[in-house]
């Protein structure tokens, strides 16, 4: 199995207000098709780790490899490109562009990537929405749909560029159990059927137990 994401000796410090060692020598690999969850108490650094892995946070020590290529130390424009093409993101608070329609929200990352024509992108976007059972929402404003629906739109957006890995920062944290279950099933399906790698930070033990592997963190280090 090929390795999608690899972290080598990642260390991070918070400098303000006092220097604080947040991540202590974090090492792990995620292989293609793996569904991994990161668990740990609040403040143990799991979100911090996720944002380093997502390439948005560049202030760390150590090496990060995406598809076996070194990401650390690349310039920001290139990181933006990598994020656009290889990483899909799902946040806790479903972060959609509220002024845009659902369809536009899903299409935006693909438009930015500009590898396909507008028609192809639109077709892809509708396919993703169909897969998540929300194609009927396509033309609604993103601010006019429910929380569970928003999270599914965010997943569709994360999928639009067929990324190598999807990362989630407590994607079910803000949802009721019915919708949380729903989101989990979508992730599971993507992992099983499309061989997509997933890395999800979560507090939800039930959620984590159902994943392939749990990375348990405590005080900035991987415990198990």
């Amino acid at each position: 199995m090929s390795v999608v994401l690899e972290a080598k000796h990642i260390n991070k410090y918070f400098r303000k207000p006092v220097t604080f060692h947040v991540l202590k020598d974090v090492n792990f690999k995620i292989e293609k098709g793996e569904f991994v969850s990161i668990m740990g108490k609040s403040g143990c650094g799991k979100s911090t780790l996720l944002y380093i892995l997502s390439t948005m946070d560049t202030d760390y020590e150590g090496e990060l490899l995406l598809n076996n290529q070194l990401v650390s130390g690349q310039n920001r424009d290139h990181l933006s490109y990598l994020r656009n093409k290889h990483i899909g993101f799902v946040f806790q608070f479903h972060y959609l562009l509220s002024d845009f329609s659902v369809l536009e929200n899903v299409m935006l990352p693909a438009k930015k990537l500009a590898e396909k024509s507008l028609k192809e992108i639109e077709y892809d976007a509708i396919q993703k929405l169909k897969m998540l059972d929300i194609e009927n929402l396509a033309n609604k404003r993103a601010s006019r749909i429910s929380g569970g629906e928003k999270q599914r739109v965010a997943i569709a957006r994360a999928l639009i560029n067929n990324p190598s890995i999807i990362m989630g920062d407590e994607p079910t944290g803000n949802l009721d159990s019915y919708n949380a279950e729903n989101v989990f099933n979508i992730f599971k399906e993507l992992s099983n059927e499309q061989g997509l790698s997933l890395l999800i930070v979560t507090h939800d033990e039930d959620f984590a137990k159902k994943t392939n592997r749990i990375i348990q963190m405590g005080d900035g280090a991987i415990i198990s």
Partner: protein
Amino acid sequence: MTNWRVILSIAKTHLLTKIKQTSTAALGVTFGIGSYITLVCFMTGLNSMLDGLILNQTPHIHIYNEIEPSKKQPITLYNKLTNNFTVVHSVKPKLSQKKIHNALPIIKYLEENKNIRGVLPQIKTQIFYIAGSIELGGNLIGINPIDEAKLFNIQDYIVEGSAQDLQNTDNGILLGIGIAKKMSLKVGDRVQISPISGGIFPLKIVGFYQSGIADLDAIQSYTNIKTVQRVLGEAQNYITDINIKLYDIEQAVPLSKIIEKQFNVRAIDIKTANAQFETGTAVRNLITYAVSITLLIVAGFGIYNILNMLIYEKMNDIAILKATGFSGKDVQLIFMSQAMIIGFVGGILGLLVGFGLAKFIGTIPFQTEALPTIETYPINMNPMFFVIGFSFAMISTFLAGYLPSKKARKIDPVKIIRGQ
């Protein structure tokens, strides 16, 4: 690579969903540019009218024979006294003729100069207007009326009749309006004049002349050069003044010096003759530009404020865009293009508003004794003002958008996503 279509579509959506703020910002620009255009058209219109009042009638170079004492008194020619201190009492001006020596060849020569637009001969003389037993002192100027109209806009000051009438009428006179009033004369009447040397000549009134300067209108009249020559009993080469109009007024000073040297005459350039006038014009222009720039800067700050607000409101959007792969540069371009669109739309509207207002001012009646032919407020619609106004709209919105958009570029998405 920059994907302009995506960036512009995002900018458009942002602008359209906040249409109230967008239009407030655009109206700020519209107001600034509109008032700039109106003000500058109006002010420069008034300025050029005031300039025209003096400058249109004033030759760029005026050539005449000055009556003055000789610079070299005979005693200085006496070699034996060169190292002595001499005092000459009661110096009198040199007896010289009023006419310019060789005037016709000089005119011909000057007409061939490429910098010169026209050369006009004039004869100035003192006369008396005779009404019964009353003699009124005055000036009579002999001119070529058609050329004078072409180069010095004399037609703007003819309230009745025309330059053509004067040209066509032998023994015609264009009477100053002040004299006409004093003597209760009307067009078609005859007025008797008498030169200093004596004799009485009846001239037919073809029109009235009103310069706007009452003192002048009470004494000055115009007639054909030939008529004056006949009245004075002089030959055809009797010319007392030569007026030169140039293509470029800046050439007046050097050219007048050359002419003085070459022909041994007095040549006064317009700058020397109207120095105080230039200062007035410069100060008025300065005020115009100071007010305009203030207006535009105020508009610029309005845009800066609104874009700043917009960026605070769109923090989430910025974070999402960055998280999904838009670079800082893309985000900056999104907000820059919003600023530029506001500037463009506001600027165009401002030009239209300014054009409309200026046109409107141009229809307001404005009557003044000084300018008989002007009926409405003068407006100077120089296309250059529109170009400047529009460029300033674009530049100021660019600057006003640059700082906030740079901030948007630097926003750290992690902080915003985690902060919530």
